[in-house]
């Protein structure tokens, strides 16, 4: 963002759009705040599952309201700026990706809620197997989420690409987990409930990684103006 007077071709060019720039800055801050909430929601949802911590699960479910509010705020600021400022070029891209990123982050928070609901449904029952692969998958997803948000903050294209590569690992873990769970279901039909719940958790994490990848794509589009396919 150019927010200072500068010389182009020997002419003093005035920074004309301080109001606009400060609102773009505000939009960015809302997205960063959303990112922080989503990072916490993912971490706590997975912890609640591992520890069978119902209180923590409820906290995750409650905190979703805040994320939804911030998404609405992004929509409000972005649509107001389009209506009043006629943004073009990178200004317009900045607003367009804000809408997309807010939608991605909001979905990620919803998926964290879905995991927390699995925790609630499972209650204090012991899991049919120790949770190893799911926490591993969750770690990669958290790393991807962190990197995608950092890539946005730094407008870092390289980090976006690097982050998106991790999605392959998530996809691989997802299919391994499913395979293992299906075998357990076949072994003993009594396992069906838990197996299904854990399949869902794996699926939720896999979707989160896709949303993180979408954020990476948004960052590339913001900086380069071209649409990459990182998925």
């Amino acid at each position, binding site marked *: 963002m*150019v927010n200072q007077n*500068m010389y*182009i071709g020997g002419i003093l060019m005035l920074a*004309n759009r301080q109001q606009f720039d400060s609102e773009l800055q505000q939009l960015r801050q809302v997205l960063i705040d959303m990112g922080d909430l989503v990072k916490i929601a993912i971490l706590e949802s997975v912890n609640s599952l591992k520890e069978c911590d119902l209180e923590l699960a409820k906290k995750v479910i409650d905190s979703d309201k805040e994320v939804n509010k911030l998404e609405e705020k992004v929509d409000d600021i972005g649509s107001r700026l389009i209506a009043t400022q*006629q943004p*073009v*070029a990178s*200004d*317009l891209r900045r607003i367009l990706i804000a809408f997309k990123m807010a939608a991605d982050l909001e979905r990620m928070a919803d998926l964290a809620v879905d995991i927390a609901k699995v925790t609630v449904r499972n209650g204090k029952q012991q899991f049919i197997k120790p949770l190893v692969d799911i926490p591993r998958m969750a770690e990669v997803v958290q790393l991807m989420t962190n990197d995608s948000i950092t890539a946005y903050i730094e407008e870092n294209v390289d980090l976006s690409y690097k982050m998106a590569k991790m999605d392959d690992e998530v996809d691989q873990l997802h299919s391994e987990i499913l395979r293992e769970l299906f075998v357990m279901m076949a072994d003993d039909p009594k396992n069906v409930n838990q197996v299904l719940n854990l399949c869902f958790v794996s699926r939720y994490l896999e979707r989160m990684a896709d949303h993180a990848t979408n954020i990476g794509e948004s960052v590339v589009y913001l900086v380069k103006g071209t649409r990459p396919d990182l998925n």
Partner: protein
Amino acid sequence: MSIVQIKDLDLYYGEFHALKNVSMNINEKSITAFIGPSGCGKSTLLRTLNRMNDMIDSVKISGAVSINGTNIYNPTVNVELLRKEIGMVFQQPNPFPKSIYENVAYGPKIHGIRNKKELDEIVENSLRGAALWDEVKDDLKKSAYGLSGGQQQRLCIARALAINPRILLMDEPTSALDPISTLKIEELIQELKEDYTIIIVTHNMQQAARVSDQTAFFLNGEVIEFSDTSMLFSNPSEKKTEDYITGRFG
């Protein structure tokens, strides 16, 4: 296919270097917008295309401007005939103090058309072409000064169409008009593209974005960027273009 070819064009007003090594091709039956801050050379280039700058004594021009393959700065070129090929519409509507009919018939008469029926036809077609016919067909004998600003500007477009040009030059044609008249003219420009090549200078960047196929961004007499309008306004390749169109300077 390009109808206008500008190559290595330099223009000086006395010592002032107003156009610097400008080269560009303008496609037939397309709309090209020239944008840039005041004094950047966009109107100067427009006036170079119908040799309006000839009227200024201190002007020196080098390089070539070809229209339909003819270098219009060749000394043998008949400037009157050149201007018949190239109509022009200005910022302020400037109808003659005559009737609506006479305003449109004026050019064809100068070019030797006397037949009343033929003139009637030209007047009707031109007014239809300028999307004004339905509003004035019963008032053709009334003074053009009775029309609103937007109607007067469309009358000036009709007047330009009456001599059957191939190219229409428009120098900020809507900057003196209200928003509704502006939108009417913009719609008209889109329709005129079917038959004419249109080059428009505008300070209104949204207008350039709305109406044109290609846009040239000028700064200090240079063409900084000339590309498809959608590209120039969504992902310009030059930093200076980006700074200008996003309103960071100018």
